[in-house]
């Protein structure tokens, strides 16, 4: 039973299209994140939500819009896709208290923009 699941696993699309990546966690965590791993394998945070409220936005272009319908879901919508958006996107979540520093990751979504 996957704790943090992302769909789709692979996404191939044309420049200019709009696409969404979905993320769900069944760990009962309050905080969810989106990270981007670029071609240099550098894993960098994009957004963080706590109980459906945005708490971190790391200077990501406005074309990226996270949406959290409830605390178990954090979806990522990308408008007007560009070649530079090609990367692997990881969703993660973390809990409260003593384990709040530990983030649990999904398997990633590999986005290829042609």
């Amino acid at each position, binding site marked *: 039973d996957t704790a*943090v699941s992302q769909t789709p696993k692979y996404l191939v699309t044309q420049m200019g299209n709009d696409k969404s990546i979905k993320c769900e966690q069944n760990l009962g965590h309050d*905080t969810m*994140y989106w*990270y981007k791993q670029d071609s*240099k*394998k*550098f*894993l*960098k*945070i994009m957004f*963080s939500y706590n109980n459906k409220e945005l708490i*971190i936005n*790391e200077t990501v272009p406005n074309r990226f819009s996270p949406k959290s319908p409830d605390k178990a879901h954090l979806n990522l919508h990308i408008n007007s896709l560009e070649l530079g958006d090609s990367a692997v996107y*990881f969703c*993660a979540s*973390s809990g409260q208290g003593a384990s*709040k*520093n*530990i*983030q*649990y*990751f*999904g*398997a*990633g979504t590999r986005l290829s923009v042609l």
Partner: protein
Amino acid sequence: DQQVKQNSPSLSVQEGRISILNCDYTNSMFDYFLWYKKYPAEGPTFLISISSIKDKNEDGRFTVFLNKSAKHLSLHIVPSQPGDSAVYFCAGNTGTASKLTFGTGTRLQVTL
């Protein structure tokens, strides 16, 4: 500005020997450090962590050492096993922001 650096992109170790993976950081605000392991086509998996108030944390074959004055941490794996072959990421966390800042990873290969 890379706040977490893993200067060895790869490391090869024989099965049964010790693997030592190193990590340096520049941000003094980090109060928690984590190591993640990543297999191809999978997400990073949490391995072990250490609070900045400690200098050592051990969990089975895995031990993390923290040297705050040198802003350096290391992960020791003893004994190394073929299943340990993966990319290992070091990450720092500032508690209030709760965002992980990752290094670029070290690919460990454990040979027979």
